[in-house]
């Protein structure tokens, strides 16, 4: 029988443990949720529009961290949305020219922001269904990230659309091309918004795909309400209310 591990060596100096001894606590459950990799959540500090846009493409995690730490980032993202959609609207308007050069960018920017505001409550509630803890402002920030990415991608596709707009006179063809590129941009942008919300809460947004489909439908309906976006200018008043699919068939038929 001995009292300590060093009992057989009475002359030796007891070694002080280098740490506070505490009883062994075995893991009682699965490992905790994965924290981000080191350095990836450091807030983005360069708030110049170009640098922020680049960060949104390459390191959205740092933009998300900056968004939660600095309210100015949200304003900068909104500026990216305005610049991106404005440029895209300008290119869209070159198809018809005239007053459309003034109206289409404005319609595009306002239409997108109204859609975002309309769909914000549903996104926030959907994320709360998954146990999300973020504030409405943070949900808005995640949504702005996605819309800003959409705007940037639409700017990237603008030269492609411009060259088609210079040759064809077919509103149906131009509308279809704009729709294709819009859907591609929306896929990337809304995906980013949902992933940003997942990162905030370490859990995916329940029914996020359904919400994204709803957002796209609202946006398509808004584009029908604000028509004409592709065709020639025909007044500032709203046209008769029409379901967007019906409007497409009308355009194809004409």
């Amino acid at each position, binding site marked *: 029988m001995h009292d300590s*591990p060093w009992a057989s060596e009475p002359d030796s100096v007891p070694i002080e443990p280098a740490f506070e001894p505490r009883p062994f606590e075995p893991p009682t459950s699965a490992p905790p949720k994965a924290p981000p990799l080191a350095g990836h959540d450091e807030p983005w500090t360069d708030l110049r529009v170009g640098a922020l846009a680049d960060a949104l493409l390459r390191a959205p995690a740092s933009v998300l961290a900056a968004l939660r730490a600095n309210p100015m980032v949200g304003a900068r993202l909104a500026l990216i949305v305005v610049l991106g959609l404005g440029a895209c609207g300008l290119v869209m308007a070159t198809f018809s020219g005239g007053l459309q050069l003034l109206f289409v960018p404005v319609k595009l920017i306002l239409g997108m922001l109204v859609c975002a505001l309309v769909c914000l409550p549903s996104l926030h509630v959907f994320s709360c269904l998954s146990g999300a803890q973020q504030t409405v402002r943070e949900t808005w920030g995640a949504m702005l990230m996605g819309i800003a990415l959409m705007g940037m991608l639409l700017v990237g*596709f603008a030269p492609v659309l411009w060259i088609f707009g210079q040759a064809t006179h077919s509103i149906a*063809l131009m509308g279809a091309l704009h729709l294709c590129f819009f859907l591609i941009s929306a896929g990337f942008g809304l995906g980013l918004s949902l992933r940003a919300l997942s990162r905030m809460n370490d859990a995916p947004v329940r029914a996020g795909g359904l919400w994204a489909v709803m957002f796209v439908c609202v946006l398509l309906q808004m584009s029908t309400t604000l028509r004409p976006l592709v065709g020639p200018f025909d007044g500032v008043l709203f046209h008769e209310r029409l379901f967007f699919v019906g409007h497409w068939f009308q355009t194809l038929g004409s």
Partner: protein
Amino acid sequence: MLSLVRLDATLLQRIRTHDRLGGIASSAIATILVGAGLYGFAFGFWRGIGAAIFSSVKLPALVLGVAALTTLASGLIAPLLRSALSLRQTGIAILVSFAVTSALLGALAPVSIAWVWMQRPMAAVVGLAATDPRAIPSIDTAQALVLFHTAVIAVAGIAGVVRLLGLLHRLEPRGGVVRRLVVTWIGLQFLVGAELAWITRPFLGRPHLPVAFVSPEALNGSFFEEILLLARSTFGVGAPAMLSLFGIGIAGWLVNVLRASAEPARIEVLPRMLAVLAPIARTVPWSSVLGARAEGHDVRIRLAADATLVEEELVVGCPNGPDARRMAARIERARQLGAVGPFRTVDEPLSG
């Protein structure tokens, strides 16, 4: 010029390190102007010197136009497909691939000129109707030559795509990312190239019509409207349905090709982390490994989202199923221990 075609190590290093990219761009543009210009000359040669000069101006303009109009979209999409290429590197990669195509076209221009010279010369048929018996032999020859030139340009284009693949594989080690980049870029280039070629037509022209720099109908219609017209004349009322089916097929194929896939990897299990040796060497703390499971002869390891907010999956090949299951179990054990640590156990005092 030839270093672009060879894609030698110095050039690669310059692209990788963003070193004097302007010089590479200048060389690529010069190669396109010379190579595509020479082939443009060969393209229009059968119609006479005037048409040859027109084509020698339009073909390089077409190539450079496609590069200019697609670079921004390609560069913005690249990071979204998980590539580390910058916008400038993307632009250079596109220019280099077009330069390779143009260099090959330039090299084949003498062959094409000789081939054209050996064909039946064009008769004086300008102003005749297309159905006039005197015009028909020249129209037949012109159609055969367009087919020949299209085949040569297609071969050179394939060489350019192969070179682009080689370049991207050396800049970006993940095969899945390279595949998605190339499919996206080529899709965009096809879309723009088809429309620009439509606008800048004719390159050879119809023998019974006078030579023109651009068609009077250049800005009236588009390549895809012409496809619709051709489909209507071929399929009649079923044309929209046929084209819709074709479009859905293409879209389905694209979605399948562009879907992110797990990357083949080599790993080493360390006490505190997982060392990924390939495709991109890095260490991943156990807390960022979400799980490992055996699937056939492979082990699939899921990594937490990184700075791009996208989760990643690695595939590690094993000799057989039991080995894969053992490795997955070992990774899971190491992960469970590593994820809750660091901690130390304390000897309980031994008492009687």
